[in-house]
């Protein structure tokens, strides 16, 4: 039985390895969770929603005097109630400047998509691009190149959590007020730079001004931190990005 299971699980390549302890654990877990899953199927209980299926207790009216004299013939109108739309998502494009540690600064571009969970918190996914320049060593030594042109490309992704820490208003002149918020963000992601994929943490602060209800302008600063050992010793590189962005709520 066990052999059979092992063969089934490992389907092919390494089923013949005699001392595969981990697959055995896996097989045991298989049995356990499959049986539990099966229990789930049998135990399945339909949730009662809206009490839709109230028992029909209506009895046939036997007494003729209780029968309605006139059957009302009313054609029901179907009314379509308008739905309330939502705009919890915000998408933005940012252009700015990124300073890559030891590799100079360059223009940067990023795109972000945020989901506003509550008035205070939002989740955000981001992609960005920048390009590293020459290190001071390369510049001084002339023709030496530590990285190829392709390896200088700096691309990152990140999943962040944001907090609208300071909501407020901006007053322009006497008659205009715009909603604004200073937000803090932090997250994790990956960066491809100098020929490697690097686990990257980022922290940032931004300022969002709502120009209209759905359109907002951003000023945003983020620090992307990762380990790098391209220049001899291993260290944590701080890569600062400052950007301006425009976003739309939808």
């Amino acid at each position, binding site marked *: 039985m066990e052999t059979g299971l092992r063969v089934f699980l490992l389907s092919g390549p390494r089923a013949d390895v005699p001392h595969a302890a981990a697959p055995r654990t896996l097989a045991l877990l298989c049995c356990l*969770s499959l049986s539990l899953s099966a229990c789930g199927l049998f135990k399945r209980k339909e*949730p009662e929603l809206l009490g839709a299926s109230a028992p029909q207790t209506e009895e046939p009216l036997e007494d003729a005097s209780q029968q309605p004299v006139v059957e009302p013939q009313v054609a029901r109108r179907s009314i379509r109630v308008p739905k*309330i739309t939502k*705009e*919890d998502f915000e998408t933005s494009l940012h252009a700015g400047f990124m300073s890559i540690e030891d590799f100079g600064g360059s223009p940067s571009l990023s795109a972000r998509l945020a989901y506003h969970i509550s008035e205070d918190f939002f989740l955000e996914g981001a992609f960005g691009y920048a390009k590293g320049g020459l290190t001071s060593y390369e510049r001084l030594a002339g023709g030496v190149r530590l990285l190829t042109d392709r390896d200088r490309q700096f691309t990152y992704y990140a999943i962040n959590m944001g907090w609208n820490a300071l909501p407020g*208003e901006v007053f322009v002149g006497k008659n205009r007020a715009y909603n604004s918020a200073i937000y803090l963000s932090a997250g994790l992601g990956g960066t491809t730079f100098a020929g490697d*994929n690097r686990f990257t943490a980022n922290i940032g602060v931004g300022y969002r001004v709502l120009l209209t209800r759905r359109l907002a302008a951003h000023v945003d600063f983020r620090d992307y931190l990762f380990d790098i050992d391209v220049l001899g010793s291993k260290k944590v590189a701080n890569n600062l990005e400052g950007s301006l962005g425009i976003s739309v709520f939808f």
Partner: protein
Amino acid sequence: MALQTLGLYAWSQPALADNFFTRWFASGELKQATVADPYLEMRTGPGVGYPVFYVVGRGEAVDIVTRRTDWFYVRTARQIAGWVDMRQMRATLEASGQPLEIKEPSRAEYTVRRYEAGAFAGRFGDASLIAVFGDYGLSPHLAAELSVAEAIGVASDARMATIGLNHIMAPEWRVSPYLGLGAGVIQIKPRATLVQAVDRTDQLGYAVIGARGYLSRRFLGRFEYRGNVVFTSRNENEALHEWKLGFAFFF
């Protein structure tokens, strides 16, 4: 064509349709609500940090233009528009005279949810892991899960795509353990600085044990351990432990 298909799909999913496509196809008709409380406070922005600038009196009707998180953007007949919080909106009446129906994700909906998506961060062997996943609920107890992950380590990086089945042992509890099984592919890429670096793609199988807890609204937290077995082309299979903590939202 693809966009149309996507549109039809989203139309069939109320949660999505509320967001994207109703605005494209809707006739522009707005839902109306009548103030039943002594007054309705309008703020300049969707949050308690923004000031109240106008008060709508009892009996007046407002158009509900849109909603952002727990705040409703409403407009009076005199074209004064502002943000009202959900607690006050609940005290308004619809045209039928019934209290305004506000769809709010809750524990009850959590139990019967269909879709769930989220992200994890954690450890995969000696590497740091980031994963995103999507779940489809087959029943309150069973969920199919698709997950994509990247692990970045000192010696190598790995990318994984897996598909599996999770059994939620007590979906009616606020915190419930779950077990699951799955399989997928893993691409392991040794660090560029190491010599003899050869990328390899292998199959893997996993067993998972974890706990999931309803947090609030449409959010839940998850913590899980996966025991992975990578079916390598060498003489021994590779066992890799994976711990991760994450959050998800359901819809």
